[in-house]
């Protein structure tokens, strides 16, 4: 297949920011002067002035029509700065960006809305800012109102809109553009599910004809639309490539929220020991058996065996699977209770998982003890997937002649 044209080309892109406002403003004045007397300050490039740091450092990528780059990274990693450079709002300090075609940037939806004007008036303003002509807006205004689903309130001042409604209206206007390059910064998070699905549908329509740069903290969204990942850390590319799952996993691996949390404790039971395959922070292969061993101490003696519930979570803290105990009648002599749970052939995909423990009375389900993030374990596998389960399957694919 013929490769499509490159729409975005980013070469050695770097940008400095200043940590101190006063200094920053002063540098601004200097930059103003040096920009007028061009061709000076060549030697200053690439050198940090006092109190400066690299907000974006040495970023390179190429994006063709029909491709989507998922830009991920922690807060303050330089994602938005990169987007602002791509959108031409600020100039890079080093390197070069070459963009072909019409750019549409959804950095903040509804920017420029005037709160005391009505929705309809703001459609015209926002449309004008985005580069539409009056005729174009006249033609599209009904479509925009329908897409945003705010017809009832379209002649009401925008200050009375909910934040979700504003975003809807902003997106509806922006969605009318037919860009060659689409830049999306975490803007869809405010809308409700119905709206997000609608946005995705719109993006899916645009994608084949567009090069998309998509920023989000929601990995499901990233995984859904991107076909390559740029993971930024402190302005630099920590991971870059077409293996989306690998990129997402490297993003997750930077978070260690593995602190044990006792959410509820009525004082009768305490967890003394826990292990997975005899270890803490165990690592096992996908398809191995998972053996959880818990040791609990009871402060009161005549207690029935409680109901034990274990819930597994993936790195995004999504509950993905659970096991719970059957009712058993065992008398225990000691004050201690040893619980071992064997889960055969665990099919979790590669990644880090945790589990929560909850202990409650069998009869009325009143809680006794609840601990989140009891233990962390890692599953290793040859294939990297970003979904939590890699199921076993028998495949049969046969050819069949045409009837």
């Amino acid at each position: 297949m013929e490769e499509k044209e490159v729409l975005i080309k980013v070469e050695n892109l770097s940008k400095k920011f200043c940590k101190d406002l006063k200094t920053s403003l002063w540098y601004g004045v200097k930059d103003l002067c040096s920009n007028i007397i061009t061709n000076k300050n060549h030697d200053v490039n690439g050198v940090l002035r006092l109190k400066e740091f690299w907000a974006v450092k040495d970023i390179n990528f190429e994006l063709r029509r029909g491709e989507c780059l998922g830009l991920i990274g922690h807060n303050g990693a330089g994602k938005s700065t990169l987007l602002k450079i791509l959108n031409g709002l600020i100039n890079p300090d080093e390197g070069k960006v070459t963009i072909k075609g019409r750019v549409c940037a959804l950095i903040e939806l509804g920017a420029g809305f005037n709160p005391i004007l009505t929705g309809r008036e703001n459609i015209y303003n926002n449309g004008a800012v985005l580069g539409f002509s009056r005729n174009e807006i006249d033609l599209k205004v009904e479509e925009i109102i329908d897409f945003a689903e705010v017809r009832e309130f379209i002649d009401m001042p925008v200050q009375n809109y909910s934040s979700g409604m504003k975003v809807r209206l902003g997106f509806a206007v922006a969605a009318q553009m037919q860009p060659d390059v689409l830049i999306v910064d975490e803007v869809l998070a405010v809308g409700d599910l119905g709206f997000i699905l609608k946005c995705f549908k719109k993006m899916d329509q645009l994608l084949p004809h567009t090069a998309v740069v998509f920023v989000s903290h929601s990995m499901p969204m990233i995984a859904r639309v991107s076909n390559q990942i740029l993971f930024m850390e402190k302005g630099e590319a920590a991971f870059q490539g077409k293996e989306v799952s690998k990129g997402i996993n490297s993003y997750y691996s930077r978070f260690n929220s593995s602190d044990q949390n006792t959410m509820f404790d009525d004082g009768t039971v305490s967890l003394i020991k826990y292990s997975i395959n005899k270890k803490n922070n165990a690592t096992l292969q996908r398809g191995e058996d998972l053996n959880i061993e818990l040791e609990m101490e009871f402060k009161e003696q005549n207690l029935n065996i409680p109901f034990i519930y274990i819930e597994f979570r993936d790195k995004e803290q999504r509950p993905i699977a659970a096991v719970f105990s059957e009712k058993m009648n065992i008398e225990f002599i000691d004050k201690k209770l040893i619980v071992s749970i064997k889960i055969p052939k665990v099919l979790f995909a590669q990644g880090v998982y945790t589990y929560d423990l909850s202990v409650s009375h069998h009869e009325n389900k009143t809680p006794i003890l609840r601990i989140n993030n009891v233990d962390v374990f890692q599953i290793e596998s040859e294939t990297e997937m970003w979904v939590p389960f890699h199921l076993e399957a028998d495949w049969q694919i046969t050819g069949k002649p045409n009837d």
Partner: protein
Amino acid sequence: MELKITVYQKTNNKRIGKLLRESFSDMYSSRFLAKQLAIRDIKAQYRQSFLGIIWAFITPLSTALVWIILSNSGTLSLTDTGVPYPVFVFSGTLLWSIVIDAINAPMLNTNGARGILSKINFPKEALILSGVYKLISNSLIKIVLLLFFLIVYKVGLHSSILLFPLAFLAIIFFGTTIGLFITPLGMLYNDVGKIVSLGLSFLMYATPVVYVIPKSGLLKTLMEINPLTPLLLTTRNLLFGQHIEYLAYYFGLLAACIPLFFIGLVFYRISIPIIVERMSA
């Protein structure tokens, strides 16, 4: 169809001519945007106000009133102005307020657009153009008021008044040129705006706004140097049908403004990304 290629890099080693061409083509293509922005601001300005349009001329009128009272009560004795003093002072303060508005317009509009400047890439020249639109619309009411005074005080309408619209546009042109140079620094430091408004309030007394140029003395020299003097005097004299002094200075000033305006536009254009980078929003 050939796609437009945009390049962003540090050393935008561009020729001033190319920048100027881009600036003008952006200004031309952003007519609708500029109009829309102007309509937005004018609507918003009046929708949230009961007195609405009165605010456009209340300040110059009240300044004029103070001077009329000072003069009538004999506290100040002023040289004869050739027209009834109230007309002289009203026309002076109204025209002066147009000058001030014109100088402040680019900065006010650019500052008001902070929210979109840091989020949407649009032709920034639209802000300048919308400022001009707003100036014209806000000044129209002042001009109507001025004509009203001319008739009430029996100064009458002279044929030279037909040239007044041109002189009015010249004021806007002059003010915008100055404003373009102030804006980039003013966006970075609040001090600039304050210094400008302070300076202008002093400058008013070195301009024949509320009194004529004295026959001799330091003030006469100052007033004759002050570039706002020919600007204001010529416009006012056209209104009153009086003899126009300082005509050479007036045309010289406007001629000097033409290259300055072009340089100002280019300066504005290259400074916006630097400002966006340094400002909050």
